[in-house]
């Protein structure tokens, strides 16, 4: 099952349309959309860490514990480009500028708590990668400086940030500079891949809530830069914003499809036959709980090692006139079964 969380409806539209998701009625205070086969759901969380975390709780709280292993959670949406560091050798030959990209996030920092999170990036689809910082307020100050130009001179930038903090009390910017300073210094001094830092208001909250349910290989953050669509006061130019998100929906789709394929494979329950056999043997042997666990392990191993357990079981039963009167006899039969299967 793929669970997509997006903060705002205009961010999600492109994905909803491309995946033909239909409105879903739920008891939760979040709009959600679902694919016809039920394998993909998209939920609109609203803006900010707290509501995003609440949405995660609602979405994942619905699953049984065993089902959670088949869930992949994607936070898809817009963000601001906070900073991009160039390496000494970096060539901008792609023609694509950094504020026209959809990024796969490899590190999340909660600006308020300083906590950092690292999703496992096991799907490889050549999306550019970035870090993201999640704050509680719209990225303010001078968006021209923060976004369009990039902050190549990191040390100058940090000085400027410190000045800003001193002159106008902008704690937000000072914290941001502190979070990103060392990485960009490290990158700019070495011939390694450049680093990009994004800013949003949900990602870290989503990670923090989702990690209570899922592992880092099940968490995915796809963030498209939409600086052109948001003005300095955080107001959205809806037309420009939608335009950009349409492009990002195209970029995100192969990633989501890949996840859906993987999830579908995991969703098959190959052990159903084993469970039936386990029950059959347990009943026949009048098994106690301990015996049942032994039977489960034996059946599991036998299936993996290529034994025909049913046949072996029937042969064992045949040595007891095809029946087992009580648990005492059941124990003897179980030991007989174990000796054959475990090679004892």
């Amino acid at each position, binding site marked *: 099952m793929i669970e997509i969380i997006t903060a705002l409806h205009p961010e999600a539209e492109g994905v909803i349309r491309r995946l033909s998701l239909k409105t879903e009625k739920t008891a939760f205070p979040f709009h959600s959309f679902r694919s016809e086969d039920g394998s993909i759901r998209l939920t609109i969380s609203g803006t900010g860490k707290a509501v995003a975390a609440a949405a995660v709780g609602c979405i994942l709280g619905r699953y049984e514990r065993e089902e959670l292993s088949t869930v992949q959670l994607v936070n898809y949406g817009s963000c601001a480009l906070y900073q991009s560091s160039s390496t000494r050798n970096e060539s901008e030959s792609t023609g694509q500028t950094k504020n026209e990209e959809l990024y796969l996030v490899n590190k999340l920092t909660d600006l308020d708590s300083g906590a950092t999170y690292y999703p496992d990036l*096991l799907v*490889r689809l050549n999306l550019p990668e970035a870090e993201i910082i999640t704050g509680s307020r719209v990225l303010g100050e001078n968006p021209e400086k923060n976004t369009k130009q990039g902050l190549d001179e990191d040390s100058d930038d940090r000085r400027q940030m410190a000045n800003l903090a001193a002159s106008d009390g902008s704690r937000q910017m000072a914290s941001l500079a502190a979070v990103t300073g*060392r990485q960009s210094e490290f990158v700019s001094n070495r011939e*390694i*891949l450049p680093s990009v830092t994004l800013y949003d208001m949900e990602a870290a909250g989503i990670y923090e809530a989702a*990690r209570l349910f899922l592992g880092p290989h099940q968490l995915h953050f796809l963030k498209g830069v939409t600086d052109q669509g948001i003005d300095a006061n955080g107001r959205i130019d809806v037309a420009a914003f939608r335009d950009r998100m349409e492009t990002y929906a195209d970029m995100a789709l192969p990633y989501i499809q890949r996840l859906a394929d*993987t999830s579908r494979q995991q969703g098959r329950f190959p052990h159903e036959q084993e469970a039936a056999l386990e029950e059959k043997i347990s009943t026949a042997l009048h098994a106690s709980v301990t015996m049942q666990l032994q039977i489960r392990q034996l059946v599991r191993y036998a299936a*993996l090692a290529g034994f025909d357990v049913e046949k072996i079981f029937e042969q064992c039963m045949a040595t007891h006139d095809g029946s087992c009167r009580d648990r005492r006899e059941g124990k003897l039969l179980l030991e007989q079964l174990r000796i054959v299967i475990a090679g004892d």
Partner: protein
Amino acid sequence: MEGQQKFRHIYIEKRVMDHPRTREILAHFPESRVILIDHYKAVFNRRGQSAALQHQSQNLILAAAKDTNVYPGAPVCQDFGNAHFYYTSCTMNCLYDCEYCYLKGMYPSGNLVIFVELEKIFAEVEALLSQFPVYLCISYDTDLLAMEDIAHYCTAWSEFAAQHENLTIEIRTKCGRTDLWDHLPRCERVIFAYTISPEPVILAYEHGTAKLDNRLEAAAEGIAHGFPVRLCFDPMIYVPGWEEIYHDMLVQTVKIVPLSRVRDFSVGSFRISESYLKNLRRQEPDSAVVQYPFTLDRGYYHYSQSLTERMERTLVEELGRMVPEAAVFRWEEPNE
């Protein structure tokens, strides 16, 4: 999911980002994406990781040495009769991916950690050496020889051992490289211990490791270059038809390795602590070797007493016939 380029991501603790070894290691991976972290545990200790999936796309973490890096040997490990038996984890996890590897049960992550401040670990060993002679296994929680091109730790440890007369080191490996003997410093107290497994076991369960012939050739080449070599038939893995499979392995071993020049041998069947097997089974739900119905005894899972005895005795006896003078260490369950 997919596995392609090695170490697509390298996480580096900020405090070692300028360590010479960090730079040296990074130089091998110009295509990797570097992510600075405060502490290796922020990545390594995340809850709910899938070590099995991570192994298919393993990442590297470079970290400062821990406060303690040298530990007394665990009861499940063969001590080869050494009183002061220790092991050190200068790296955690392995480039190889053996299905039965206890590391998947012990560590929360499948990513590889290299502690770059090797000199701090040396200092810890020196503190022990000032009290008594030490027998130190440096390649228990990893395969250092497989990583020699990346970190050169076998070279560094060999040089360190050469300077400390009361230190004996064991480097356990499933690596099949023969070229390393020309570069590694030779020290009579640095033992290269090859885990020898039958080819069907290697193919089925020891993913990424060298084939049997390659391991044997590497061991033979090491002997030819004058390095002390140990052969470890440990862990013996139960597979249906094990008698023939292990016999074939010994026949192959005799063909390739001059057994009379092997320093010693060890024999032991697979065993693992209760808690590690529980985690390992969760990580490897579809692995027959891990899902085998083991017997639990005093906190350790192993094959039944009779199967253990048959497997180990058969191998020891056959080995004894091939090399009558062989020093064979068989793992004994520790007394309570």
